[in-house]
């Protein structure tokens, strides 16, 4: 594909101008076989992450004056667009921070990024367990390394629960039962949406995964649910709406417009008590409520000790460009980012709690593992989790989930019809992108 676009570009433009190569002649091998060079490293994030990463790069440049790291960073808006354009044009940075589902969109065959297995001379992966490594594996090629892992759990406004004299639910039935006491006061215990996070569908998936022990979509991109399982999931969502656990999509849209929950007056003023969110992203909700009010709630079970089915994913990953002219140097820098103790200390939790054992150890020593993200993390450590398939995170798939939820919420389709539609379109799309 990428080759194809370049080919077209070459046909249409004057190919006389050759691509400005970054390759610099190596003067001396200064760093144990590493060349003197400049590497581009790109990431997105907020101020904290920028500041910490720039400091980490300074630290690297002190240790390795011959390998200069050139930072390229920005906010999240448009970053996917930027990186996918770069990769299509073959001009991506040498090292990139990537999102989990980009593995599918940017490297469907495992050839979109450098195979990190080939770089074991400079990149020590022994700090990662095999499960963690497998997240970045496509067709036997290690496309990306997981920086951190997080789960998608429940967080509640403790203030509202205290006011109503309610405890956090620990089973699905308890959650449904909360609809009544909350509804009497005009509150809702939980918010579920059909925005880019598709929380409505994700919670329904967790519920069915726990009941059936199946995975909605398998790691290799096949539907694990049958139409009946999808029907159960949609029915579960409808039950939540009917029991006043969550707003109908129409009410939610009327009240919040297109805003995310953390930008919603309903949430900030305490009419909505709970949210389903990745541990790595919960800070946004925390910061619009008074200090300490948002708390992590139990991961719901069936009441008989089954608490499985909750979803975890790599919150961020690093990949190396397959077009890099300095793979060894890139690997050495990656090793520094992932494993180096001094780097871990500088970076802190700006990319979540490090998945690398070395970094985590260094990090625990400094004793700063606190906060909601950490609380959520420890809840997930106590249960059997399901690693989300990158296929489930694809935007087009989310579009299918959201359409189904919206239709049954607006009663424009009955549940079996919506489920069949969801099943068919997901099946068709997955087949298309797997081949």
């Amino acid at each position, binding site marked *: 594909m990428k080759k194809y676009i370049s080919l077209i570009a070459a046909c249409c433009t*004057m190919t006389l101008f050759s691509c400005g190569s970054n390759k610099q002649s190596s003067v001396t091998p200064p760093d144990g076989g590493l060349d003197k060079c400049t590497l581009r490293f*790109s990431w997105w994030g907020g101020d904290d992450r*920028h500041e910490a990463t720039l400091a980490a790069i300074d630290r690297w440049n002190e240790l390795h004056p011959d390998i200069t790291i050139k930072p390229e960073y*920005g906010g999240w808006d*448009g970053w996917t667009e930027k990186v996918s354009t770069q990769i*299509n*044009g073959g001009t991506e940075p040498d090292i990139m921070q990537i999102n989990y589902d980009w593995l599918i969109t940017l490297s469907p065959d495992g050839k979109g990024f450098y195979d990190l297995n080939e770089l074991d001379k400079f990149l020590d992966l022994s700090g990662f367990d095999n499960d963690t490594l497998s997240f970045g594996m496509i067709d036997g090629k290690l496309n990306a390394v997981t920086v951190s892992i997080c789960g998608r759990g429940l967080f509640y406004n403790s203030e509202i629960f205290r006011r109503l004299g309610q405890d956090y639910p620990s089973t699905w039935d308890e959650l449904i039962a909360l609809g009544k006491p909350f509804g009497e006061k005009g509150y809702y215990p939980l918010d579920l949406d059909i925005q880019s996070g598709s929380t409505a569908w994700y919670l329904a998936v967790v519920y069915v995964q726990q009941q059936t022990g199946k995975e909605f979509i398998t790691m290799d991109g096949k539907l694990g649910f049958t139409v009946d399982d999808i029907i159960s999931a949609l029915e579960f969502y409808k039950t939540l709406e009917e029991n006043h656990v969550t707003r109908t999509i129409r009410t939610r849209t009327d009240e919040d417009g297109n805003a995310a929950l953390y930008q919603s*007056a309903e949430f900030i003023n305490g009419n909505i008590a709970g949210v389903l969110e990745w541990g790595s992203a*919960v800070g946004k909700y925390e910061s619009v409520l008074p200090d300490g009010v948002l708390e992590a709630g139990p991961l719901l079970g069936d009441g008989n000790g089954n608490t499985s089915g909750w979803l975890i994913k790599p919150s961020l990953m690093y990949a190396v460009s397959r077009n890099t002219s300095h793979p060894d140097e890139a690997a050495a820098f990656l090793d520094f980012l992932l494993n180096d103790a001094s780097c871990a200390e500088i970076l802190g939790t700006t990319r979540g709690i490090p998945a690398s054992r070395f970094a985590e150890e260094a990090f625990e020593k400094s004793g700063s593992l606190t906060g909601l993200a950490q609380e959520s993390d420890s809840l997930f450590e106590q249960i059997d989790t399901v690693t989300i398939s990158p296929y489930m995170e694809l935007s087009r798939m989310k579009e299918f989930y959201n359409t189904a939820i919206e239709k049954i919420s607006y009663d424009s389709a009955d549940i079996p019809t919506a489920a069949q539609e969801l099943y068919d379109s997901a099946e068709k799309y997955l087949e298309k992108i797997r081949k």
Partner: protein
Amino acid sequence: MKKLPAYILLIMTAAVMLYPLLWLIGASFKSNSEIYSTAWFVPEHFDFSVYKKAWQTGTGHSLGKYFFNTFMVILPKTLFAVLSSVLVAYGFARFDFPMKKFFFALLMGSMFMPAVVTVMPLYLMWSKLGMLDTYIPLTLPSLFACEGMFVFILIQFFKGVPKEFDEAARIDGCGTLRTLFYVLLPCIRPAVVTISVFTFLWTMNDFLTPLIMINSTEKYTLALALRTSVDSTGQGYEERKIIAMSVLGLIPSVTVFAAAQKKFVSSMTAGGLSG
């Protein structure tokens, strides 16, 4: 007294138009929760230190740097766009030449394609030319009248100027270009000012193209810098600082627009040539 109804109407409408700006300025002193939970513009507290933070930006470069970068793009771009659009529009409006209809169709057609699909091929071209991460992809196209819309606007304004003007100029011995610059251009000055203002304002807000063409954060324009601190997938961010940055970022646009107003008078009406 006759003007009173007009004033009342103007003031009421202006309030509707200005309120978001007022709110924006107020919001630069608010906490995140206050920003999202009230539409009233007066903040609970005033803390001007947010503007100091906004100037420092927290992205590794100061807002002054981003302002400078933006002007490095805007000034040549505006100059190029105006100059090339005027020449081309003059050609279309006043002369006959082979394949004129075809070229005019091409000009109109260039406006019909959504920009998102032309970004990728152009990106590849600039990449082959080794010009990524420079301002050339952002400014150079303007030298070739690539804003079909501006040419289209100017053509229509040129047509509003009576042809007798050109002929009189020719009789006085003016050549093609002298006629343009000394006779016609003063007549359509308001339109020229209008397209300069458009170029300026739109370039200030331009996001996708600079984001894709520019890699180095130190070369970012203001519109990019405004989103550099925002990670909507990650942890929280301080909205007021970003709002304060955007308030500062509005100053050039508002100033340019206000200043341009003096120039909206053409020589055709003002110079007494009319008739």
